[in-house]
């Protein structure tokens, strides 16, 4: 389906653009940006398979050497750094968000979207993220979880915003929720 491919590329570009628009950077390890909001939205709007493909497309292009990550980062070096798990985790995160969205059709869009974004963009994303940090920085999983903890409140906020955006988009364009089509 050509339209599917165009939507996948569009959301990949949205993930990139959300990271490059100047945003809040807390003084801490992984830069805080709206980028993971883009990943959550990809899953929530596009559904599991297409959402994961949009995330995979961005990860692939970063590996090719394009500066598509927050702050203009990119290249193979990112895959040797401590945040590698969060980057690779975007793919299962978007998939999980879409999967939840596809299976909560009876919930209102806001509740389903926020829940999907929370489960995908936080629960599923932090597992590879924490494993990656633990491996690269040679710390135990518990210690690495401690390093990641400060980012969770911001990400919960992003999940709520993702739910609100899904509701607003659904109102503006009735056919936008491909995850529920």
């Amino acid at each position, binding site marked *: 389906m*050509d*339209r599917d*491919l*165009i*939507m*996948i*590329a*569009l959301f*990949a*570009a*949205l993930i*990139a*653009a*959300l990271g*490059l*628009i*100047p945003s809040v950077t807390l*003084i*801490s*390890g992984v*830069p805080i940006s*709206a980028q993971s*909001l883009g990943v959550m*939205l990809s899953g929530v709007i596009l559904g599991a398979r297409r959402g994961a493909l949009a995330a995979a*497309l*961005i990860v*692939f*292009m970063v590996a*090719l*050497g*394009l*500066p*598509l990550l927050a*702050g203009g*980062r*990119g*290249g*193979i*070096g*990112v*895959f*040797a*750094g*401590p945040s590698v798990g969060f980057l690779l985790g975007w793919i299962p995160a978007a998939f999980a968000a879409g999967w939840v969205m596809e299976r909560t059709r009876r919930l209102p869009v806001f509740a389903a979207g926020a829940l999907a974004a929370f489960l995908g963009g936080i629960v599923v994303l932090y597992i590879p993220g924490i494993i990656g940090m633990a491996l*690269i*920085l*040679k*710390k135990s999983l518990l210690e690495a979880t401690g*390093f990641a903890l400060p980012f969770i409140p911001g990400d919960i906020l992003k999940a709520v*915003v993702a739910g609100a*955006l899904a509701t*607003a*988009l659904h109102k*503006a*364009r009735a056919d*936008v929720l491909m995850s529920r089509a």
Partner: protein
Amino acid sequence: MLSLTSEIRTPLHAIGPGPKLAALAIASVAIFSIASPALMLLPVAVSAALYLSCGRRFARAGLRSLRPLWPFLLLLGLWHGLTQDWANGATLAGRLLSTVALANLVTMTTRLEDMIALCTRALAPLRVLGLKPGRIAFAIGLVLRLTPTLLDRGRQLGLAWRARARRRRPGWQIVLPLCLTALDDADHIADAVKARGGIPD
């Protein structure tokens, strides 16, 4: 859309992406097996020498691309400083710096076209699984074309927000109009692609 390939021509630009990636893989595995801080000086020195052999300006650009690592280095410094475990801290910091620096070096000295060509060749056998290289290439081109457009529109929405609002920085409020215009773009692109006979396989 700029790639991270350095404009400064170096001898490393002449080597194909295949050998460079293979060398990077071998070097990374070797660096991961080093356990003593004294021995870790070797990959750090080799990385620094490789960058410096490409000129001062190139080396400075390389140093800039390592900047996102500083929070992690600070974390390692604090952690191993508090636990009085300096040797392990230094080994880990050296490992992090040298592996990331070497990987960045490959990206900085390889043209995007060469990297795409290599990946197309590498992905070709997956055609039997239903993967269509033409569609992947189309998607990459579309992302390259759309990202600056969305970025520009995001900046304009941010300026408009600043003109109206008291707060200086726009937050998530600009994401909704950004998404809506992006969805309209998708409709236009879908029409244009259809008119031209669809996306090639």
